């Protein structure tokens, strides 16, 4: 039997929704004023565009060897020069952008899919489930990231999907812990009490009331998580256990170029600069989002 919500409850919920819409509008206004965040966002748009273009077009086939003399520096035909096997560095850099974005965004999507529901449930229901989740988080924090990733790549094999899975296994705890904390805090707030008193079921409370109010920190966390994942993939590829030939990753390109750094620095500099700029851009954007969504932290 359906029960109508009392008038006071409806008013409280309406206030919460209005507060939320104001929050997003304010956040957007504050974000637009942050020049570094805007510059970072523009750079990331460029990277996304390059990655998309590389799906259909690159100056040369990225795996074609001997296009230029190995180690040859930049020229008009090959603006970023050739690598140790005479492959076009620019073409490989473009394809490498795809890999970085797929790894960064793909990892964070999986982390969100895993961490948000688990964190919400742990924080809202507490009890044995919360205890188990907290224990698991502590266990994973206790094991070095690299060890977990290496074991997983060793067991699953070094494919793009498996690299993403391996990185998720080292990153899910941050998001889960954050969301759990948010849920723990929000479950005691009046609008949640009101929803509960109004007969809303736990799933509705979690996803209609608690999650929207935790979105700000979640977005910020995810934004910072993307560069962390990109860097981790680059590190794995640099170690030779990441993306496999002939697919280029910025990390594997840097690893390949490091042997020639004293005669052909462009081979290592091109992916290293691209990687650094991308990481900086994500971090600027993350900072901007954090300041925009939670201006108190800025003070």
């Amino acid at each position, binding site marked *: 039997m359906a029960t109508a919500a009392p008038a006071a409850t409806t008013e409280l919920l309406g206030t919460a929704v209005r507060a939320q819409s104001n929050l997003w509008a304010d956040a957007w206004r504050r974000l637009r004023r942050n020049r570094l965040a805007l510059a970072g966002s523009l750079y990331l748009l460029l990277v996304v565009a390059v990655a998309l273009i590389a799906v259909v077009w690159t100056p040369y086939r990225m*795996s074609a060897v*001997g296009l230029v003399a190995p180690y040859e520096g930049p020229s008009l035909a090959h603006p970023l020069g050739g690598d140790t096997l005479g492959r076009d560095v620019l073409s490989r850099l473009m394809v490498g952008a795809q890999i970085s974005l797929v790894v960064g965004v793909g990892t964070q999507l999986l982390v969100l899919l895993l961490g948000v529901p688990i964190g919400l449930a742990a924080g809202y229901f507490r009890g044995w489930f919360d205890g188990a989740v907290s224990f698991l988080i502590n266990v994973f924090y206790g094991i070095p990231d690299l060890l977990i990733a290496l074991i997983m790549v060793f067991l699953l094999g070094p494919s793009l999907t498996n690299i993403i899975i391996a990185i998720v296994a080292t990153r899910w705890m941050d998001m889960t812990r954050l969301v759990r904390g948010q849920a723990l805090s929000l479950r005691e707030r009046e609008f949640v009490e009101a929803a509960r008193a109004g007969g809303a079921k736990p799933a509705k409370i979690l996803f209609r009331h608690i999650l929207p109010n935790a979105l700000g920190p979640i977005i910020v966390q995810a934004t910072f998580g993307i560069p962390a994942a990109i860097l981790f993939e680059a590190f794995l590829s640099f170690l030779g256990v990441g993306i496999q*030939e002939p697919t280029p990753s910025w990390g594997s390109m840097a690893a390949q170029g490091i*042997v020639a750094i004293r*005669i052909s620095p462009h081979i290592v500099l091109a992916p290293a600069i691209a990687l650094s700029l991308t990481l900086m851009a994500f971090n600027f954007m993350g900072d901007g989002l954090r300041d925009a969504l939670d201006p108190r932290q800025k003070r």
Partner: protein
Amino acid sequence: MKALGVFSMASLVLMACGGPSGTSTNLASNQTLKFPILDDIHTLDPGTIDAETDSEISQNLFTGLLKFDNDLKVVPDIAKELPTISSDGKSYTFKLRQDATFSNGDKVTSKDVLYSWNRAAALQQSSYDTTTFQTIVGFDRVSNNKVGGAALEALLEKKDPAVTMEGLTAPDDYTVKAQLTAPGTWWPSALSVVGAAGMLVDQNVVKTDFDNWWSKPETAVGTGPYKLTARTAKASMDFQAVDNWWGSPKPTIKQVHVDVISDSATAVTKYEQGGYDLFGFGGYSSGASLADVKRIQATANEKSQLHIQPRARTMWVTFNLVADSVRPAKGPFTLADGQPAHDLRLAFALAVDKKKLVDIVCQNIICSTMTGGIIAKSMPGYLGDNADPLAKFDPAKAKQLLQSADPTGAKTKGLTYWYDPEQPIYRDSAPILQDQWQTNLGVHVDLQKQSHSAFIKSRLSGSYVITRDGWLIDYPHPQDYYDGLYGKNAGCPDANCTSGYDNKAFDELAAKANALPLDQALPEYKKMGQMLIDDVAYIPLVNFQGVYLIKPYVKGAGANPSFEYFWNQYQILQH
């Protein structure tokens, strides 16, 4: 005796400035040699050694009855002279020096020879165990031994027939007789391989810890000019000259320190900073990156320290040629699949532009194209420049062959090329092969790398459909290649055999050629090489050049196409 003049090469001592026999007055007071090695040693036990780095260290700690001189000529070592050979070529008699001792002072007698050789034959943990002793009467039985450790030592101690080759006898303390199953003109060469199964070990120390005696300074006892004094696994080793060593030349270098550094760029940098006296030794002869070589070639100062020399080392691609219940790999290239599989192999061979590969990977500095069959250039049995049709590049014919052999593409779908990336040439050639097959055949081949030791183990058990392969000679004789790689003598199709290649005609040719003096055997060996070509058993790729960096004050250091010179030939001058 005539047969023992196996192969006298023109001197390739391009970097050595002479031996230490001169009474150099300008020797440095500190005779400590320092250099990096590519990999930690897996063993120093001559009975189990199979890796390049291991034998290049071990050769300075252990010696045998015979050895190679720097020109790859067999000369006596613990033997007083070259062996006497019976008229039928099946019986060898060695007379031993009476002053040879182990580093702990134990005298070397014929019993040590019998113990060392029977032990190695029974161990069967190294390919050298088979190639060195397979021709001795009784080897077949001993090689079936399945016990190891203390149990094997107990059998050896009581001279159990199960681990005793009856063809090996000791008429007195300083005479060893070996009865062979067939004349084997190559055998003295096999016995002379440095740091391998023919070297002698001391039963008094081996029996204290049968498997690990070599790893501790107090029991790592050999007959060589140096002894182990310290070892930190995966980090470093120290060696010291044996006092009053019985052989010659007497060691001038008193201490040797080696660091395990698996990254060649790091090792080269430390050499350039003065941390090492040498680079390119201990497994590193093919380990220098092309970038470093090009950079050093462009410097005024270090250019003269760079020595590039041909090595008798070749690299090719091997197909899995046999699918049976023992070999895990199957694939579309097997001999049993007849002409279509033959055409498929030929298509893959002709689709590779070997010149382009060499241009990119080596720029004709650290390797060159391999165009004369499986045997390295300058070695006996080499078929001649451009004599191997598999070395040609013919993409049109390759495509045509592929279309007839695999019109739907089903056979070549999902192929994976396996390789070990530790050596730059192995690492860099993989994506080039992949690109060549993709570009010229339209076939995508995945790449899969594996660490060297695991790779070799899997490869020799027939686990790969298509894989990196190669050979560094042990001794300059075609038998070293053919009996080590193909046919019944190598263990093919099912034991220690990458390709699985074995057939009756090949085995008959091997038996005939192995029994002949080298000059008469060469035509037979060349027929064996031609059989491999006709059956498209491999895709020839490159001949290696060794890259060495030697400080100007190190005298006598260097290498020939087969091995590095012994440390007791080096001196450090004042600098």
